[in-house]
């Protein structure tokens, strides 16, 4: 049979964001995959060069709606290191709490999406309901369900009062019970096992070769986790484990994510119970030293996020280079898809939890709300950003 080219996207029910795969298939078997990410470019890296640090943080939160805290924290910790700032312990704890809550809501979202990709909508509805609990907690802490804007250079924006901590701790047992439910479900639900086991399998060697990161890598026994390897915040002082699995297929990735849900819950509980006193921020200098260069690594829910930051002695960055986990994972997806069934595309692609908004970093505001008075940003908008409205994966 001749090869058929099946376009998946940029508009397709399996995709929550615009991306285009050209799937070359032979009958129901996939031969090759070509990716075009060009539907969501917002020029954030360029915009970041023209804004001071205070205004870059909210911008970076908009790189992605789901891992907004990751990008902001990754940037903030890099800049703080360049400024040689000592961040108060309490601020570090609060950042960790928000980071782990974010991981929980991202993983719950993923679990729902993965279930939806195989048509198992019940689990989708259930996980998204439980995700609401996490988002309520985040709203209680920060005032926002997504884009929490918790970070400032030098600390965090708002504190967690003892009452808040108490009310959050009261909600955790319910979540824990629900997570237990999902563990049971993932291990016993027949159709889920049929669709997840042995699908999109990547061996340890392949993962290393294709440079996959995050839960995708850990599901194949590659125990890279920036939280342990390059400790930041307080990860080297609190109890937690890197979750790995040996299966290497979509099922393995599910198990890793559910395991991480538990670990994150434990971390949030530990941090809330042991929240140290003290200030939540320090005064940060206006400018960063000239010629500074840092590679800031952060374990986002989807994998290792890398910000490469250059400073030039002003209050703006010279260069901000963002390497998102999804971009690192694409190569492995393209490899995992070869020789699989056409029907497995959605679930294999979903298994890396792709975030295209992160990956291509494009349209921020809709062009009518020209709120920023920044001239170069306007120029950018006029020139570039009218192209396509971007989705903000929420």
């Amino acid at each position, binding site marked *: 049979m001749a090869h058929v080219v099946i376009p998946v996207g940029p508009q397709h029910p399996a995709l929550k964001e615009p991306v285009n795969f050209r799937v070359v298939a032979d009958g129901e078997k996939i031969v090759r995959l070509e990716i075009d990410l060009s539907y969501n470019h917002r020029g954030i890296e360029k915009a970041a060069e023209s804004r001071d640090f205070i205004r870059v943080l909210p911008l970076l939160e908009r790189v992605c709606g789901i891992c907004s805290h990751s990008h902001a924290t990754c940037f903030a910790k890099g800049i703080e290191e360049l400024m040689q700032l000592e961040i108060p312990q309490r601020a570090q704890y609060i950042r960790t709490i928000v980071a782990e809550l974010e991981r929980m809501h991202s993983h719950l979202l993923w679990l729902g999406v993965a279930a939806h990709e195989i*048509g198992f909508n019940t689990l989708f*509805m259930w996980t998204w309901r439980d995700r609401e609990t996490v988002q309520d907690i985040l709203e209680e802490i920060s005032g926002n369900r997504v884009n929490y804007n918790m970070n400032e250079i030098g600390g965090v924006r708002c504190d967690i009062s003892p009452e808040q901590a108490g009310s959050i701790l009261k909600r955790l047992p319910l979540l824990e019970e629900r997570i237990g439910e999902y563990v049971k479900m993932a291990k016993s639900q027949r*159709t889920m096992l049929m669709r997840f086991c042995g699908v999109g399998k990547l061996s340890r060697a392949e993962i290393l070769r294709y440079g996959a990161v995050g839960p995708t890598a850990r599901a194949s026994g590659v125990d890279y986790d920036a939280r342990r390897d390059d400790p930041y915040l307080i990860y080297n002082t609190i109890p937690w484990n890197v979750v790995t699995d040996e299966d290497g297929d979509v099922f393995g990735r599910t198990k890793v994510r559910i395991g991480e849900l538990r670990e994150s819950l434990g971390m949030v509980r530990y941090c809330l119970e042991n929240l140290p006193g003290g200030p939540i921020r320090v005064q940060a200098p206006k400018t960063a030293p000239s010629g500074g260069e840092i590679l800031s690594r952060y374990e986002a829910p989807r994998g290792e996020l890398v910000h490469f930051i250059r400073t030039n002695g002003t209050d703006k960055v010279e260069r901000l280079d963002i390497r998102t986990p999804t971009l690192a994972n694409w190569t492995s997806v393209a490899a995992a898809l070869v020789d699989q*069934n056409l029907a497995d595309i959605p679930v294999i692609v979903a298994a890396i939890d792709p975030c295209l908004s992160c990956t291509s970093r494009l349209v921020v505001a809709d062009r009518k709300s020209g709120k920023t008075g920044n001239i170069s940003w306007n120029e950018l908008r006029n020139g570039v950003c009218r192209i396509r409205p971007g989705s903000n994966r929420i």
Partner: protein
Amino acid sequence: MTDPLFPLLYILVFPGFLFLLAYALILEYIDRWITARMQNRVGPPWFQPFADLIKMLSKEVIDPAGIDRRLFDAAPLVALAAVMTAFIYVPVIGSSPFAFEGDIVLVLYLLSIPTIILFLLGWLSRNVYAAMGGIRTVTQLFIYEVPFFLALLTPALMAGSWSISSIVAWQQQHLWCAILQPIGFIVALIGLQAKLERPPFDIPEAETEIVAGPWTELTGRRLAIMHLAVDVSLVVGSGLVAAMFLGGPAFPWSVEPGWLAGLSGLIVFLVKTFCVLFLLSAIKVATGRIRIDQLNDIGWKYIATAALVQVALVLAIQSARVIP
């Protein structure tokens, strides 16, 4: 029965087309509501299926480039007509007045028409998703049709009749076929689920893979009518399973006068179709979608074997004359 108006009323009003259409939409609503409640959602208001139908009927019909318009218009109508005809032979308030020896074969045949139509629509759409969906539709048809037919044959074999109404009558004297032939009942339910393309057998219209399969290019009234045809199939299918395995609309005691007998028959019919629908909805909620190759494996290895075993058992019982 001699009144010439009676057949006309039976076909057109009750329990024919008018009742059928209303009941199909109500059943769709109940299906959606059960699903929603099981998934922890609120679910639609009761008139949602009616509103959907009216809305879709009033929407613009979009012709994909290069299709045969008349064929595209006619195909959904054929599907709807086929399943509505099939309903005439399904006992609702008592035996169908049109029953004849062999109507089960006709009903099964008519029930297959929407599937064939879906394949045709997919093939005609000149759209890669629709074409793939169409191919998957027929592939699936070949997998579930054999066990489904075999499963529905077993009550006929046992009752020694090819008429649905006589099979119902036979069950009234003996036992429900669901009790006598549990394997056949389960196979029939699975087959019906596959026929209606509901999870886990919604492979041809797998939303996240091929958009809507053969439905992709259907718009406006074509979509409305095709949708209605599937809803009617749900009624016919569950009515058929209820008749073949659950004793149909027969009331355990004889009821006088005639209108009361008809009413009690209708209530029994409604209750039994709800039960079948509930089972189908439960399957739908509890499963994800399997792949076509997995369905192929399961269908031929297990479901078809189970159906054959059931037929063999029935034949053995028949020859041993356990049940007179």
